[in-house]
């Protein structure tokens, strides 16, 4: 099992980077993806049109998409998107840098790994949302309050992956580096970092998704602007617009995932997990 694959299976759900190898049906995955979306939208439309749910509470897919299209023509919509993306990006950047640095330091020392293990396992499962009262007390209803949630949630996603990655260094290579007299910095630079990079990329991709979820949650519950706040404003008084905004956050999620995969592929283009599939 390649390091990238074991990292991914440690993460649970994600598929390996690159194109999946398909057996049997020779349908390109892109087509299947589109079919899935069309099927979902058709079901949504049917459920509403058949009167199963009242359009007053859940408007049909067609009217929601129409509303989204007219929203997208307004400048303020893109302002909201910009605010959300800013919080997401700053949150992910802070969490990512902190987690990578701490992960490499902790991961390259057996003593630190063992000393921090139980603390990390204790802090990691605390839901970020539970920190909302603390965030509001510290930062009021500003963007920083949401940022606190985003950083907290994304940090653990990345840190755990980096820790696994730093622990995955080939012992022979490590011994070789030591016997050639490479110092700590050199070992991190030439040995630990390349070994951990596939894990780091997985961690960042998972962190990116979590960061978006927490950004919208924070904006919704705390306020401070962005798509989440607009969803809260539209609740009950502008139902179609609310669902249009919800769809918009979903689309941003898809875009972020595609972007993360592209970055991953590029950063790991030398790595066997990406190279092999590119050749095949």
């Amino acid at each position: 099992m390649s390091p990238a694959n074991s990292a991914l299976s440690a993460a649970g759900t994600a598929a390996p980077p690159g194109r999946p190898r398909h057996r049997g049906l020779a349908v390109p995955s892109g087509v299947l993806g589109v079919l899935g979306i069309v099927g979902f939208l058709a079901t949504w439309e049917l459920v509403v049109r058949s009167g199963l749910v009242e359009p007053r509470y859940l408007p049909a897919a067609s009217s929601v998409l129409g509303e989204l299209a007219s929203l997208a023509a307004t400048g303020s919509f893109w302002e909201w998107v910009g605010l959300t993306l800013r919080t997401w990006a700053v949150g992910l950047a802070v969490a990512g840098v902190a987690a990578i640095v701490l992960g490499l330091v902790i991961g390259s020392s057996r003593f630190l790994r063992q000393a921090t293990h139980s603390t990390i396992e204790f802090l990691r499962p605390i839901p970020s949302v539970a920190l909302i009262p603390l965030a509001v007390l510290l930062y009021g209803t500003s963007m920083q309050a949401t940022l606190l949630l985003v950083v907290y949630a994304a940090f653990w996603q990345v840190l755990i992956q980096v820790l696994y990655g730093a622990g995955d260094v080939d012992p022979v290579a490590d011994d070789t580096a030591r016997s050639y007299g490479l110092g700590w910095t050199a070992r991190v630079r030439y040995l630990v970092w390349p070994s951990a990079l596939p894990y780091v990329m997985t961690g960042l991709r998972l962190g990116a998704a979590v960061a978006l979820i927490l950004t919208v949650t924070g904006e919704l519950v705390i306020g401070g602007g962005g798509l989440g706040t607009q969803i809260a404003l539209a609740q009950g008084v502008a139902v179609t617009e609310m669902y249009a905004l919800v769809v918009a956050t979903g689309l941003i999620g898809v875009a972020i995932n595609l972007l993360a995969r592209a970055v991953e592929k590029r950063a790991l283009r030398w790595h066997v997990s990406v190279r092999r599939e590119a050749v095949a």
Partner: protein
Amino acid sequence: MRRTATAVLAAAALTLVAACGGGDSEETNAEGDTKIKVGVIPIVDTAPIWLGKEKGFFEEEGLDLEITTTTGGAAAVPGVVSGDFDFAFGNVMSLMVAADQGLPVEFVTNGTSASGQTDADFGAVIVPTDSPIKSAKDLTGKTVSVNNLKNIGDTTVRAAIEKDGGNPDDVDFIEVPFPDAPAALSKKQVDAIWVLEPFMSQAIADGGRVVSYNYVEMSPQLDIAGYFTTKQYIAENKDVVERFTRAMNKSLDYAGENDQEVRDIVGTYTKIDEATRAKMVLPVFRSEFDRASMETLGAAAVTYDTLKSEPDLDALLP
């Protein structure tokens, strides 16, 4: 490529650090106006402050007003106590509860008040048209939704039930946010809902019937909410508080006299459509507090266990 990425990350981290620091007392803008930050909920009730800002009432007092919206009312008291807001909009029961818990909060101006009419108000208990509940006493033993438990909603509804001859202790209150309440009622998940405008109009349009205008039942002139800050802030910023109070009172009186302008300004900070805005019942906006109504409310809150002891109105009111 890598260097750019590093620079971007460093810049992001610095922005964060810079944004986290910095106090906020007595800052002035380029024109020498004092900057103040006021936390409000984006609902109909806060129309006067938006209107006052638009009319320049705050500028006249040398105040550079920043209105910050919070999604729920829960952020108002912590926001003011932590110093994030200079002032905030809060309902009288929330403030009484905060004072009851020993937080040093005090109103500086009024905010919204009940209509003073027994047959129309901006908040009501609503049931489905075909419901056997005919008046407040029939709510005994039923489920009623309110936006927050142990607050002004359940307290005034209990009082209305008792006044009508029902048993105020035998009511099952559950928390449902206002926007979701009309749907909960039409799906019969609750027997009755307590909602404010614009959800009251919406619930009536969906086939709802008003059982009680609980604010008016408590006291026709009941003050519902106001703008508050901490006692410490009042002691340290006497001048700012006086100027804010003057501008806010002017805004309240102006809003009270200009119905259409209130309906228009609501459209600028909420997503309530024009048709609903034209129809909805507005709260009364006036600068004077009605102290007697607050005494009634405070006594009722003690009776129904919302408060431990009767509020000290001398400490709570300006």
